[in-house]
C-alpha cells in the first residue's frame, strides 16, 4: 500500500468509476451525475480527472467503450465494466476499506 498521494487520488477516481459502471454501462456525463448523486455532492470529480481516468481504464482493459445513443438521442460513448474491471473493483474495494478504516481509527479522538 505504499503509494504517493497523486497515485492515491487517481486510484480513488478509478475505483469510483468502476463502482459506478458496476451498476450499468454509462457515458461519462452520466458517471459524473451518478457520483454527485451517490455522494450527495461530496465526491464530485471534475471532467478532466474523470475522462483521463476513463481512458486510462480503457487502456488497462478494465473498461471497454462503444458508441451508443444517449437518452436525448445524441451519439455518446458508453463504458462497460470488463471481467478484469469487475475483478479489479473487488480487490481495490477491499484495499480501500482497510485503508479508510485505518485512517479513521487514527483520526478518532482518543
Amino acid at each position, binding site marked *: 500500500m505504499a503509494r504517493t498521494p497523486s497515485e492515491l487520488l487517481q486510484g480513488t477516481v478509478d475505483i469510483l468509476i468502476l463502482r459506478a459502471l458496476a451498476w*450499468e*454501462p454509462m*457515458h*461519462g*456525463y452520466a458517471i*459524473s451525475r451518478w457520483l454527485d448523486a451517490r455522494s450527495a455532492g461530496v465526491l464530485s470529480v*471534475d*471532467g*478532466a*480527472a474523470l*475522462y*483521463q481516468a*476513463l*481512458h*486510462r481504464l*480503457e*487502456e488497462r*482493459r478494465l473498461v471497454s*467503450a*462503444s*458508441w*451508443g*445513443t*444517449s*437518452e436525448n438521442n*445524441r*451519439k*455518446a*460513448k*458508453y463504458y*462497460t465494466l470488463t471481467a478484469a474491471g469487475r475483478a479489479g473493483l473487488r480487490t481495490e474495494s477491499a484495499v480501500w476499506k482497510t485503508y479508510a478504516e485505518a485512517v479513521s481509527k487514527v483520526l478518532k479522538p482518543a
Partner: protein
Amino acid sequence: MPTPTRSFRFPWRSRADIARDVDAELGFHLDMRVRELIAQGHDAGAARRMAREEFGDLEGTRAYCRAADARSDRAVRAADRLTEWRQDARYAWRTMRRTPTFAAVSLLTLALAIGANTAIFSVVRAVLLRPLPYADPGRLVAAMESWPGNPGNSTPMSPPNYVDYRAQQRTLSDLGAYTTAIGPVVWRPDNADPTTLTGIAADGHLFHVLGVRPQLGRTFDTTGDTAGDSSSVVLSYRFWQRALGGDPRVVGRRLVLDGRSLDVIGVMPRTFVLDHDEDIWLPLDLRDDLARPAITRKQHWIDAIGRLRPGVTVEAARADLGVVAHRLATQYPDADGGRTAIVTPLHQLAAGDLRTPLVLLQAAAVMVLLIACANLMNLTLSRTIGRRQELALRAALGAGRGRLVRQLLTESVLMALAGGALGVALAMAGTRALLRVDPAALPPLFPVGVDAQVLAFSLAVSMAAGALFGVLPALHAVRTGVHDVLKEGGRGSSAPRSGATLRRALVATQVALAVMLLVGAGLLIRSFTELTRVRLGFDPDHVVTAQLRVTGPRYDSIPIINAFYDAVLGEVAHAPGVIAAGAATLLPMQGTISTSLRIEGQPADESHLPDMTYVAIRGRYFEAMRIPLIAGRRFDATDTPDGPKRVLVNETAARRFFRNGDAVGKRIRIGPNPNGEWMTVVGVVGDVRDAGLDLPPTPTLFVDHAQEAWQHTLSMVLRTSDSRAAIDALRRGVKAVDPATPLRSIQSMDAVVGSSLDARRFALGLAASFAGLALVLATLGIYGVLAYEVSTRTREFGVRLALGASPGSMLALVARRGLAWSLVGLAFGIGGAVTGARLLAGTLYGVGPLDPGTYTLVAAGSLAVVAAACIVPARRATRVDPLTSIRSE
C-alpha cells in the same frame, strides 16, 4: 436508458479518427452540462463558461485521452494480429495434415535445400567470416617477399631481411616472425616414453603483434633477437591440459625437449593457434643466422606477421615495405635483386585456397534452393488452384484479400520453417559425420559448426524461401474473382489455364539452373579424373613411409648421424618382405626446398641464378620408389661421406640446364657461395610430380644424405610385400639402434599422394551431389507440372480420343509442351554455364571451361531425363477412357 450496441467494436482507427472521437466525447459532456445549467436558469453564455470552468484542464485532458487511445488501439491491433496468426497457423497445420504427400514432398525438398545451404554456410562462416583468434585481427597483415623478378610468387622472408624490414618499416606498430619448419620436437617426460610434439618457433615480436594475453605466465620478450629466452618454452592450452594435467603451477617447471632442459614461462589460452594444433612454441633464435648474413640472406623460411599502425591502410604498408625492399635489392643485389615485398591481410591469406571453392559451393547451394523454391511454387500453385473454391468461400464470408494472402503465406512460411528445422538437423548430422570420417577435410584453424549466427542464417533463408515460393501463388489465388469461382460450381473447367505460363516459366528456370550446376560439376569431375590419371613418375603401391628424426646433444656430428641411419636402414633392408629401403628429406607432394645453381663453364647472372629443388637421399630410395635411372649411375659404395661430392639430377633439370640434356659428368655449385665446392653430376633420373599432381615436375637435384647429413629429419621409404611387417621391422630396427628416437607419420605412399587430392575430392563430392539434387528436383518439377496438366484436362483428352485422335498424337501433344519449355531452359542453362564456368577456370585441370564433351554430355543427359519425365504423364493422357472422362463431369 437505452442499451448501447455492444457487438460493435472499434475498427482500427487513424490518428484523426481518434482525435475526432475524443473531441466528440468531451463535447458531449460539455453540452450536457450546459443544457443542465440552462435548465437551472443560467443564460447560455454563462452556462458555457461555467461548464468549461468546472471541467478543468480541457486541453490537457484531450491530449491525455488521445495518447491513451492510440496506445490501447495499438495493443488491440497487436493482439488481433496474434490471434489471426494463430488461426492461420492452426489452419495451415490442418491443411498440411489433410495433404500428407504434398507436405512430405515439400518438407523433404526444403530440408535438403536448406540443409545444403546451412552446411556450406557453416563452413563459409568459419573460414571466411569469423575473425582470427587474435586481438583486432583486421589490422594484421602477413609480410612476404617475392621471387626475384616475379612479384606474383611469394616466399617467406630470409632472417636478415626480416630484421631489416622490421627496423626500417614505418607503417607497422611491430613485425613478428615464426616458422613451422622446425620439425617434430621430442619430449622426454621424467617417467614415460618419449613422445613427439609439434612445435613452432616464434619470436617475442610475434606474440606482441598478435596481442593475445597468455593464460598463465608470459610470452617471449621483445628486447632483442638474441634475447635471454633461448631456453624457455610457451605451452598450448591443449598440451598443458592433456599432457600436464592443467597443472596451475606449471610456470617455472622444466621440460626436456630435444635433449635440452627448457623453462616453461607461459601457457596460451585455448583459442590461440598459429598454424594448427601445435603443442608448444619455442623461441625463434636467429643469432646463428644473423652472424652469417652472406649465406642466410638467401634462405627464405621466416613467416612474418605485422600489425598496421592506427590509420594506416594495407596499401600504405605495401608501399612502405616496397621502399625497404628496393633498398635491400640495391644493397644486396645477389640475394635480393628483383625481389619486392608482398603484404596481404592475414585473414585473406589464412582462408587462402578455400575462398574460391567455398564461394562457388555456396552459389551452387543457393541455386539448388532456387530450384527447390521453383518446385514448391509449382506445387503450391497447383494446390491453391485446387483450393479456389475454399478460398472463394472464405472471401465471400468476409475475409479480405490481404487476409487471404496472409493466410496462404503463413502456410508456406510455416512449411519452410519446418523444412528449415529439418535441414539444420541434417546439416549438423552431415558435418559431424563428415568430420568423423575425414577429420582433415576442413582446415583446423577454423572451427566449423552450427552456432547462433548459422542458425540465424538458416532462419532467414527459410523465411525468404517460404515467402518466395508462397507469394506468387497466393497473389494469383486471390486475383481471380470470387464470383467466377463460385459460379463455376465444383467443375473447375477453367482452372488449368490459370497460372499455366507461370508454371512453365518455372520449369524453364529449373532446367536452366540444373544444367548450369551439372556443367560445373561435370567440369570438376573431368578435372579430377585427369588428375588421377597423371603419370606420377613413381609407383606408390606397396610403399610405406615413416618419419624419423634424430635429436639431442648425442647427434652433434655427421659421422654419428650417418652411423644411426646406416644402422637403421641396414636392419630394415634384411627384414622379410622388404624389397628396397631408402630415405629422403622430402617426399613428393610434401613440399619443396630450393637452392640456387651455378654450372661450370656457363656464365652466371649473379642476380638471377636458376633455382632447383633440393632433396637429400639415402640407401636405395630410387629403387624403393621405382624412379627410373635415365643416364649415368645411382649413388653407390664408391661415394663416401668424405669423398668428392656427387649429385644426381632429374630429366627436367637435365633438359633445362644442360645442352642436349647431357648432364652426366658436368660439375655444378649450389647455394649462395660463388666459390663453394664443385659437385659432379653422376646420373639422371626420371621426373616425379613432386610439387603437386596438378603442377609440372620441378628441376630437382638429389644429393647424398651421407654427405649432407645436417638435415636431421628423414622420411623412410620401404617397398615391401607386407607393409605391417615392414613397419614392425622398422620399429625394431630403430629401437635396437636408439630406443629414445620415435617414429611418426607412418602411412602408405598411396595416402601421401591421395591427401593432395583430399580437398578436391571433398569439394567435388559436394558439387556433384548438389548437381544431382538439382537434376532430381528439376525432373520432379517437370513431371509434376505435366502430370497436373494431364489430370485437369482428362475431359479434353477424352473428347479428342472420342473424335479419333491417335494415342501417338496425344503423346506428342503432351510431351511436346514439356519438352519445348525444357529446351528453352536448356538453352538458357548452357548460356549461363558458358558465362559461369569462367569462374571455375582456376580450379580446372586438363579441361577447358568450355569443354565441348562435358556440355554435350550434360545437354544430352538432361534431355533424356526430361524426356522420361514428360513421357510418363503423356502416356497417362493416351490411356484416358473417353466415356468415363466425359461422364465424370
